[in-house]
């Protein structure tokens, strides 16, 4: 065997081991969700059951946490998508030293540990609400949305920046020359161009918010979200109901991913059809022109 063949074989073995490491723990956890045994295990397999899902559905704290997490995720999307978009647009308009200063500030939440963002948010708003009397801000849900949006806006901003890098500025100028106002250009040229990025930014923002624990555990105060309920349960001990929750989460995400893929494919197909129509029209015009030229 040549050295290259050996390399390839070794690489193949490594890839298999790597994905076993990635999926093994999750698969085993998934199996424990269906085992009758009260302790999460796969050996001995005491029989197939769906009871753990019933236990899960009857868990009031968990249901409350889930609702809270969904609500917070929704609010975070509402805050961080427009803020990230504004952040990205401003980035394309500041230059020189102001730009690196601005960049340092808006990217710093990405490079700050989540616990610190949670802590600083709580500390600041406790003080600020005491000074101003705006007590309603000092509330677990509000603080969690503020703390999470602080770094999730930076994520969405990075997504928007990547999309803006491909924006053709001449489109804007063309619209302005044709008499559009600045606001109209924003509404009818820039926003439609950003639409796919807005979609993926919203998805990323929601998922980051939904599964966040580090920031939330500080900012949520006495309230609870799904992740904080989960962490509390896990400290009390392990039960297959938690595995059942993992299975449910995976099932929901897989369905979501498939739906997302279908929508995307349909959109791609539509875009392709539109491009084909445009090309046909363009060609037809060319032939018409050529015919006209020939007739003349």
């Amino acid at each position, binding site marked *: 065997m040549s050295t290259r063949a050996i390399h390839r074989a070794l690489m193949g073995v490594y890839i298999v081991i790597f994905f076993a490491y990635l999926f093994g*723990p999750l698969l085993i956890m998934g199996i424990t969700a269906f085992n009758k045994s009260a302790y999460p295990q796969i050996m001995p397999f005491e029989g197939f059951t769906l009871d753990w899902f019933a236990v899960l559905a009857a868990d009031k704290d968990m249901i409350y946490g889930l609702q809270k997490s969904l609500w917070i995720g929704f609010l975070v999307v509402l805050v961080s998508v427009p803020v990230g978009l504004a952040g990205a647009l401003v980035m394309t308009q500041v230059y020189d030293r102001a730009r690196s200063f601005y960049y340092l500030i808006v990217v710093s939440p990405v490079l700050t540990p989540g616990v610190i963002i949670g802590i600083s948010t709580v500390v600041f708003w406790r003080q600020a609400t005491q000074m101003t009397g705006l007590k309603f801000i000092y509330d677990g849900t509000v603080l969690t949305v503020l703390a999470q949006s602080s770094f999730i806006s930076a994520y969405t901003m990075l997504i928007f920046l990547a999309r803006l890098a491909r924006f053709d500025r001449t489109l804007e100028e063309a619209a302005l020359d044709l008499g559009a106002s600045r606001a109209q250009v924003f509404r009818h040229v820039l926003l439609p161009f950003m639409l796919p990025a807005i979609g993926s930014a919203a998805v990323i923002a929601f998922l980051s918010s939904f599964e966040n624990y580090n920031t939330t555990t500080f900012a949520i105060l006495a309230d609870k979200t799904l992740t904080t309920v989960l962490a509390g349960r896990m400290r009390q001990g*392990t039960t297959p109901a938690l595995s059942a929750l993992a299975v449910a989460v995976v099932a929901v995400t897989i369905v979501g991913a498939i739906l997302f893929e279908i929508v995307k494919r349909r959109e791609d197909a539509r875009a392709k059809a539109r491009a084909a129509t445009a090309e046909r029209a363009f060609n037809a015009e060319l032939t018409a022109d050529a015919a006209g030229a020939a007739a003349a």
Partner: protein
Amino acid sequence: MHSSVGQWIIYLLPPLVVAGFALLAVLERRRLGPAAPLGFIDRNGWPVALFLIVAVGLWTVFMIVMPLMAMVDLSFRPKLAPPQWGGPKDFYTLENYRYFLFGSTTSTDNWNVTHLKAFGLTIWVSILITILDFAICYPIAFYMARVAGPARLRLMMLMLIAPYWVNEILRAFAFRILFTQQGVINKALLAMGAIDQPIDFIAADVALYSGLAYAYLLMMMFALYNAIETLDRNLIEAARDLGAPWWHIHTFIVIPHAKPGIGSGATLVFMLTAGSIAAPLILGGPKTLWFTPIVYDRFYQAFNWQQGAAYALILLAACVVFVLGVLKLFRLGLGEIAR
């Protein structure tokens, strides 16, 4: 010094800095005269300009800068009951930082051994995990970027992302199922006859370290993949034609080219590991004290927020030092890392 000064700084400094930049912009425009480029409001139209200013202003000032400043301010204050805030006893002090180093004034130890040890362990293990993640990811990232065809690449990407749809806490739970005394690995080893007594993987921190290495693998993977992907294929071909052995190609061509990716991956993995709180809570052995749970306890067990803020700042400082160290080591700029 009386500490309402701190409050004035927090509430006045950010607007002053913003005003300073606005003033500089105005002066610059005046200097350039009619040659100046289109102004911010003219360029965006006032509705959009207003939206941009309000959104970015609220975000940077109220959600990023002021909270951090408030935390710094609080960390230099003594623990007081709320009625005494701003009173004569509320002055700046280094007490919270002194406590981190030397412990309570009544203790007989010279140093605050528990907290210092936890901090040292957190930083040290985070560095090791970062290196480990690089070692695990590098071959796969190289394979994806240079060897795999488009169909296989798509499949591998999907398989990489899929496990990370599961929540961080549930992922840690999966490792707990594997590694407890009645866990799957112990059961399997016992059944094979490799051991007669279950091994306590949790107390030995095997569970914690493998869980942490797993938790933030993806960050390193994508950073490396993106960096290696931009490498010109001809460079590798040329080196191969000139007879370079495979490890030469990696040490002298691929890795130098991937430096920004390695830097950004290392920064993210280190920061996330050092700041992680779920995995240490769920997988940490009874004797292992990670730093973040200590910070949490300062806040919600000891109710000493001042000290908690100081501890959080110490952790943040460690992360900043690490980022600067990586920048220096790899000779990179911040912009190249946070991409």
